[in-house]
């Protein structure tokens, strides 16, 4: 009896490992195989070095630039949140955080609605100055890519560095003062070195996200900008040059694993740590005039930069623009979501996309949640858990485009997937979500004193019963947080989905991408409306996450 239970326990524990072996290791292995298979022929291709070098160089260049700019924007904001109390602070913090969990397509749509050719700013300028064409031509430029990356990743920097800064003891700085250090000397010799670790890990994370950025480059950068990710996508879907795509993927993986290894090595926090609500001497109300001006300037910046795009998206989804340039309030874009006026085969029904996205997201949440519980609980009890934990988190360092390519190479030929191609999407989404779920659950499991389990065991509970009666009730909030993350990640997933989706099974992100690339006011409006729905879902999820996290902290 006892033995069979134990066997069952081990059997269950093996499920996440088997899942990763089949759906992660296998596709990656096939990419390697493809890359090396075609390597001989590729070597003879003229300009191979250029074909690899150009996207690699541009990827590094834009990622480097984005990181520098993100640090420049993030530093003052981290300072603001870790030093000042002010009214509405929570709202402003949420505003800076929201972009991080927004799907790339929504960010692209939001920026488009604000500064794109049919965006508010251009509409206003055309209207006021009676211009023939939109004066701001920022779409398809490096600037808009950088802008989107800053918009996206500032929150990582602010959260990681801001949290460290707020928790930094004030005594070292005071000691430096009594030893004669002025304000800049204190910053340079004391604060900065003490924040170094968190700044570095924030920079690495931001770099990783910028390096693997796909949707932003594809949708905002346009055809003239190609990063490794975009190049892999284009080589696969348009050039049908799978060996080259494979080789690019191998290069990409090498670099991202290298970066992720550094991040995992010294980060003790989860993916997104929420700013702690700490009251110490550092936290003050803005007192001097200088501080007040700084506060107002920064808050205005946060509003313009982090809030306005979302607002603009929201309002733009209710506006129809006639051919003569006059505005009209309309609910049409939302009504249109529900019927296929075009009746054409290539037309994507927004309602179908919504339905598909929700279905995929729910399945993903379920699988990732179950696998996550088993994996996190198993890690807690496993020997060499550090190595295992790093292995389980590896998919985090794999770009979604690479995952998509791997899936495309590995599975669609199998008859099951030929019959039901849509199954692959939640399976891929689970790979994206699983590391995040594990990273949320593992610390929660680990924070339960081992004595509690021992006591329950001593009272006669089997390992399964202990999990059921002791652990799960105690980690309830973390489980909800993990589930919500899985839900949002699946809803917004674009990279892997764009490889695997078929026209007849659109998701919201792929639908938005299609609408934005098609001409016409209705398409544009529907992109806005669909994005708006996605935005709302994500915002609600984030608010819930924040609530559950707070609850967890309190208990």
């Amino acid at each position, binding site marked *: 009896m006892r033995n069979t239970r134990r066997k069952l326990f081990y059997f269950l524990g093996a499920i996440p490992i088997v899942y990763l072996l089949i759906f992660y290791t296998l596709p990656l292995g096939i990419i390697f195989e493809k890359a090396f298979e075609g390597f001989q022929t590729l070597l003879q291709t003229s300009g191979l070095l250029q074909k690899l070098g150009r996207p690699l160089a541009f990827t590094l260049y834009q990622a480097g630039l984005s990181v520098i700019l993100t640090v420049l924007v993030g530093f003052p904001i981290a300072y603001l949140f870790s030093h000042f109390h002010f009214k509405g602070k929570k709202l402003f913090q949420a505003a800076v955080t929201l972009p991080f969990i927004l799907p790339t397509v929504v960010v692209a749509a939001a920026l488009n609605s604000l500064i794109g050719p049919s965006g508010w700013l251009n509409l206003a300028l055309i209207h006021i100055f009676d211009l023939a064409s939109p004066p701001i031509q920022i779409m398809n430029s490096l600037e808009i890519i950088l802008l989107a990356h800053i918009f996206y990743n500032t929150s990582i920097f602010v959260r990681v560095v801001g949290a460290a800064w707020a928790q930094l*003891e004030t*005594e*070292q700085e*005071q*000691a*430096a*003062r*009594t*030893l*004669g*250090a*002025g304000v800049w*000397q204190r910053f340079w*010799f*004391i604060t900065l*070195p*003490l924040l*170094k670790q968190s700044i570095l890990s924030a920079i690495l994370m931001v770099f990783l996200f910028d390096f693997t950025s796909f949707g932003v480059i594809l949708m905002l950068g346009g055809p003239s900008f190609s990063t490794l990710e975009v190049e892999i996508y284009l080589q696969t879907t348009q050039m049908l040059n799978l060996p080259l795509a494979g080789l690019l993927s191998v290069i990409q993986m090498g670099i991202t694993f290298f970066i992720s290894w550094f991040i995992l090595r010294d980060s003790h926090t989860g993916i997104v740590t929420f700013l702690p609500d700490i009251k110490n001497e550092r936290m003050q109300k803005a007192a001097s005039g200088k501080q007040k001006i700084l506060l107002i300037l920064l808050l205005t910046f946060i509003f313009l930069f982090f809030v306005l795009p979302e607002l603009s998206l929201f309002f733009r989804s209710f506006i129809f623009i006639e051919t003569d340039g006059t505005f009209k309030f309309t609910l049409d874009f939302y009504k249109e979501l529900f019927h296929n006026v075009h009746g054409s085969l290539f037309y994507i029904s927004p309602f179908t996309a919504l339905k598909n996205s929700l279905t995929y997201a729910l399945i993903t949440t379920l699988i990732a949640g179950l696998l996550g519980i088993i994996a996190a609980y198993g890690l807690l009890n496993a020997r060499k858990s550090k190595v295992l934990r790093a292995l389980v988190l590896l998919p985090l360092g794999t770009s979604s485009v690479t995952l998509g390519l791997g899936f495309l190479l590995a599975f669609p030929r199998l008859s099951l997937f030929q019959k039901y191609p849509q199954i692959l999407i939640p399976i891929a989404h689970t790979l994206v979500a699983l590391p995040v779920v594990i990273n949320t659950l593992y610390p929660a499991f680990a924070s339960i004193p081992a004595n509690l389990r021992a006591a329950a065991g001593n009272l006669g509970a089997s390992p399964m019963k202990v999990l059921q009666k002791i652990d799960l009730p105690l980690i309830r909030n973390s489980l909800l947080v993990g589930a919500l993350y899985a839900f949002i990640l699946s809803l917004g997933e674009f990279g892997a989905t764009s490889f695997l989706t078929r026209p007849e099974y659109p998701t919201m992100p792929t639908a938005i991408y299609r609408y934005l690339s098609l001409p016409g006011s209705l398409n544009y409006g529907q992109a806005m409306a669909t994005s708006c729905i996605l935005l709302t879902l994500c915002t609600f999820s984030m608010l819930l996450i924040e609530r559950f996290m707070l609850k967890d902290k309190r208990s």
Partner: protein
Amino acid sequence: MKKPCLSIRKIHKDYEKNPLLDGISFDLHEDETFCLLGPSGSGKSTLLRVIAGLEKADAGSILWRGKDISGIPVEKRNFGLMFQDYALFPHMTVAENIAFGPRMRGWSKAAIQKRVEQTLQIVRMEKFSDRRVLELSGGEKQRVALARTIAPEPDLIMLDEPLGALDKTLRDELGQVLHEILNELHIPTIYVTHDQEEAFTVANTIAVLNFGNILQMGTPEEIYNTPASLWIASFLGFSNQIPGSIKQIDPLLIASDVGDFSLSESEHISMKKGGDVTLVIKPDMIRAASRKNGSNLIQGTVKDSQFRGDGYRLSISTKNDATLHFRDTMRREIGQPITLEISPAMLLVYSGNHA
């Protein structure tokens, strides 16, 4: 005495509408080690921070050699402050920590290095120069913190519970070292502690602080021999307290449940026959009485007799069930009846009845 170098004048500071410092004044002289002695929450650390400039007083002034320094920022005051938990810079070595002050003052490299060696020698830590501070033990950290504080040759040293984070054995040992170092330095020092023994060891002058006020100021002997109030006597650990009343004024005679006690005059009571007082008996070395009648005798039974290394600790129960403690020369049998002779020098008397 010489002219004061630091003058604190009527310092007030509120914290959340409660007075933390309520009009404190005192003078600090050259070469003096001035000890602020008080329980936690008495405002002593806040006073240090105000003098250092880390906090602003709501009212009052601080004069350094006659000049008001309220407007001078912390980093320009040249006052050394050693923090209670040391606040060593974790990202620097021992030598880099100590060099920090001189570096901020723009000393030459050679001068800094010389000074680091010098201060390491002063705190007897020569071999630790290149160690990371995180690797140090509590006692080692304490000495590095002291070295860092004195390295830039401050005009004034302030020590906030410098032995507070250490365990008992280390405290005794390092207290001695600290005392010797302070004697060698000849820099005026303000020393904050809640431990009277520590205060007695290091200080020339002690100010007993509570509720944001200085309750008594004097030499260690003055404070120990004549605590100015019952609260101070209790704070110093004089727990043998007996309610009584004035039976006779000249010479002073106090009646209590335990017996009558005559003592030299006390300035701490309003002399009125029949007035309620509290009698405090210091827990000094005691001897058994040879007489059975008369004043200044305590009769009781031995409740406990413990060996304390340098003597014994005797606890007796009096006939009205009070427990009194004394130092003793020998072990006594528990339950044995005993009569103790109380010399007038062991007695203190305060107005009012605390019970």
